[in-house]
């Protein structure tokens, strides 16, 4: 072996051993157990204890039980509405930030990152203060005379949608903003120079070029919404049940590992499929043969 080859081999060995400890932990503690969890979904549940085996009964139960079907549809519904809302509300903000030359721009960005850092529980608490029966919205509406009794806003699907949208909106804006910033502004100017008004430029030039980024952002937001735990628990309560809290309860409160794992597998798979689908749809609509 030449010295160069030996150096290379030693380098490779060193590299592998450097990465080893981290890899072992992640593998053993997180990755392998996920597969085990999914294996459990095919086990049998005997009223309070899991029994090894191979059966589809958990899945059958899920698909046949109208309650769990509703839980699933609730989750998809909330996630879909939140995603669309976030897109509609977030795009103008992202565009504003991307085009902004203000020296306060980094402040605006920090203000977006800030809510993401403080945790979903605290943010949900905030929405409870706003939407509760004794909360701010009810107070203002009563004060204005629009209603005389508090309206039930908290513990409804509406509250979960509002809370989820508020949580995912910053992620979307940050993703879109970075995509829009990457678009060469002179391309927009060229379109206007050629006779396109602003709305036309936006529709025919900006959106198609931003499409891959929009697709990625949409996927991210949809996945986050589907997997939400704290927000549905605190803002939905008994008014609406979603998949993540449901599967958590199945495993920790009822100890029904097979059913809980089945719900988890359904959640992960459905989320992945729907996210990829929405991403593909956006690509198709806007992106012609742009294979890079």
């Amino acid at each position: 072996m030449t010295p160069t080859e030996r150096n290379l081999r030693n380098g490779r060995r060193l590299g592998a051993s450097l990465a080893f400890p981290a890899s072992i932990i992640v593998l053993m503690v997180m990755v392998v157990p996920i597969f085990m969890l999914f294996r459990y979904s095919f086990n049998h549940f005997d009223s309070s204890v899991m029994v090894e085996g191979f059966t589809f009964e958990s899945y059958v139960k899920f698909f046949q039980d109208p309650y769990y079907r509703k839980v699933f549809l609730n989750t998809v519904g909330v996630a879909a509405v939140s995603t669309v809302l976030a897109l509609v509300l977030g795009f103008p903000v992202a565009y504003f930030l991307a085009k902004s030359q203000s020296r306060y721009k980094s402040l605006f960005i920090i203000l977006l990152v800030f809510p993401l850092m403080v945790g979903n529980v605290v943010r949900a608490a905030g929405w409870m203060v706003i939407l509760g029966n004794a909360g701010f919205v009810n107070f203002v509406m009563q004060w204005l005379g629009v209603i005389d009794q508090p309206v039930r806003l908290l513990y409804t699907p509406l509250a979960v949608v509002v809370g989820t949208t508020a949580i995912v909106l910053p992620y979307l804006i940050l993703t879109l903003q970075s995509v829009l910033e990457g678009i060469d502004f002179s391309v927009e100017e060229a379109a206007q120079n050629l006779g396109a008004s602003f709305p036309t430029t936006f529709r025919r030039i900006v959106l198609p070029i931003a499409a891959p980024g929009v697709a990625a952002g949409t996927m991210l937001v949809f996945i986050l919404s589907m997997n939400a735990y704290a927000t549905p628990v605190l803002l939905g309560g008994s008014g609406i049940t979603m998949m993540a809290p449901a599967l958590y309860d199945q495993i920790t409160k009822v100890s029904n590992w097979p059913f809980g794992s089945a719900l988890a597998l359904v959640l992960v798979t459905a989320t992945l499929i729907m996210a990829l689908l929405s991403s593909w749809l956006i690509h198709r609509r806007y992106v012609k043969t742009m294979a890079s």
Partner: protein
Amino acid sequence: MAKVSLDRLKKQFGASVAVSDFSLEIADGELVAFLGPSGCGKTTTLRMIAGFTEPTAGTIRIGEDDVTNVPVHKRNTGMVFQGYALFPHMTVGENVAFGLEMHKVPSAERDKRIGKVLDMVRMSELRDRYPRQLSGGQQQRVAIARALAIEPRVFLLDEPLSNLDAKLRSEVREEIRALQRRLGLTTIFVTHDQEEALAISDRMAIMHDGKVQQVGFPEVLYEKPANLFVANFLGKMNIFAGHVESPGRFVTENKLALAIEGSGAAATQVGVRPERIILSAEPLGPNAMPGVVDSSVYLGSLIDVRVRLDSGELIGCQLPNSAAAGARPAAPGTRVHACFRAGDCVLFSE
């Protein structure tokens, strides 16, 4: 095609004035170059004409119409951007078609124009390619075709050649000029490269710090620069400071007497272009300044010679690499006379 009239255009950003008091009449079919160093305001002025920037003061007329407040997309000023700004998600053909669609050209006519304009820039075969599949030069031609397809009243080019390599630059420059002449396009060409401006323009406007320094035919600007900035920006110039002692006689600070033409009694500087200076062993003509060759740099087609005059100044001379000059190389240390005519002197009073 139409004429363009700029009347006292001004653009101010906060406290800094990017363009001040720019007035110019561009005739129908004329190619005017805006030339100047970075930050002189040439691109800002171009963008005001296109409509991307609103002037702080002044008006812009295209033909008989005052377009100062007309939005970009209604001005019909076809522009070629420095980075070409081709739509990455559209083919060459679609890029060119876009403007036609915006101007509501019926589709039969549209196809005809696209074909015609792509032929003009010799890009017909690559009609279905995407911009990322094209070289820089090809992208630039598409950009030109796209701007011309809409049959603009004014053709605007913002440093279109600066991203091309040197060889390509002069070729494309010639093509653009030929195209412009053939179509009779009123054109404004922004550049920082003086050779480009000199080669391609009917008239030139040199700008510095937001102000127009001089406007006119290229030869006039070069031979008779209005001020020191133009003199030094266009080519090189040897400057002698001093005063006019009597008509036709200028005395420099180092007591050198120069024969000048004209009665510029207020002149405080005299300039002479390096290529007008002849180096000879014997004095020739009214201005023959004795000195010693200080350095001689071989630049291929010309030879750059520095001569230290006996009176102290260091002047630059440019000798062509001709047979005659080659036979008598000016080696450092040689005693020579730097000779030029009275008519070669340009007077400045700054």
